[in-house]
């Protein structure tokens, strides 16, 4: 079957993004075993949760609060995953199918697959972009998670000297592409201050959950929104910049 140029481009974008995000998986695997999870538990997170930000959050909160921070870890990862629900609303009309298709599509609905799909014009290319990216990221992410977990286990205490800084830097990397608008930057700044103030005042996990209030308030009121912004609006369903592709540059 001959593929159209557009479909080929969508396929190529998917594989490129999948390769780029694989690097993330390695650092997740290493951090997860350092936080006290087993190699199996680490792999189950990548296989079933399959959402980078949420996975890093679970591991980060368990690392600082232990098992007693479990409920906070569950709540934080779910809140962080809510944007995937918005992506799935956006993708649902493009990916019609039976139950199996919907379940597979749901599992593969992440920043990267949505971004590549929405970056294509023709419906067929959008579908190819979604599935190619989703599958490429899924395979790469899970393989590198396992590799990172095994290497983390081998290194043991040697790597722990700087591993807490790696965890913090990993969150900076996830946050950075989302700070292109004033509104998002203000929310990030206030959330960081609130979380810091709450560190000595509440059990581990709670400072991060409490920071969610900032998002809800600014989200409801739409404060700090600049309607004349050159970039996409804050309420866009487009995930924007993701690892391995810079959509905003490509569109200009």
């Amino acid at each position: 079957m001959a593929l159209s140029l557009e479909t080929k481009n969508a396929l190529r974008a998917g594989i490129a993004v999948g390769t780029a995000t694989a690097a993330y998986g390695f650092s997740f695997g290493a951090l997860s075993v350092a936080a006290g999870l087993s190699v199996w538990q680490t792999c189950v997170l990548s296989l079933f949760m399959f959402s980078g930000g949420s996975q890093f959050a679970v591991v980060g909160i368990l690392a600082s609060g232990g098992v007693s921070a479990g409920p906070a870890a569950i709540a934080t990862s779910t809140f962080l995953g809510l944007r995937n629900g918005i992506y799935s609303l956006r993708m649902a009309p493009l990916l019609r199918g039976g139950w199996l298709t919907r379940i597979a599509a749901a599992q593969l609905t992440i920043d990267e697959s949505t971004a590549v799909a929405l970056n294509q014009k023709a419906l067929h290319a959008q579908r190819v972009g979604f599935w190619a990216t989703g599958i490429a990221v899924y395979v790469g992410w899970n393989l590198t998670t396992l590799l990172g977990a095994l290497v983390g286990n081998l290194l043991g205490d040697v790597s722990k000297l700087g591993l807490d800084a790696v965890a913090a830097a990993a969150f900076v990397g996830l946050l950075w592409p989302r700070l292109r608008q004033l509104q998002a930057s203000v929310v990030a700044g206030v959330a960081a201050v609130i979380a810091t103030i709450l560190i000595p005042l509440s059990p581990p996990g709670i400072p991060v959950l409490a920071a969610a209030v900032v998002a809800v308030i600014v989200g409801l009121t739409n404060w700090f929104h600049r309607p004349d912004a050159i970039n996409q609006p804050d309420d866009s369903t487009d995930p924007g910049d993701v690892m391995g592709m810079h959509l905003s540059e490509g569109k200009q």
Partner: protein
Amino acid sequence: MNLWTIVLVASLGVFAVKLVGYLVPASILATPRPTRIANLLTVAMLAALVAVQTLGAGESIVLDARIPAVVLAAGLFALRVPYILVVLVAGVVAALLRNFGLMA
């Protein structure tokens, strides 16, 4: 609650959120406000995680080698240095500062 329960319940929560979008009509939630809140939630919680991972140690604030490592990482991300290189540099910088007794 043991580790396995946390891992499985959290995974189920994230999957359920992804699945909801394929089961309800888009008109219910695909309006600007819920979308904006979901996007800002991601930003707020990631920012809070940066703060807690950089400054927190259990229930106290500790200023140590994580701070220069994170500032350096932010600078490198701004210069579009590849992710894996940035986190490696952050880890190595913190480890070196500690190894030479320059910072806790």
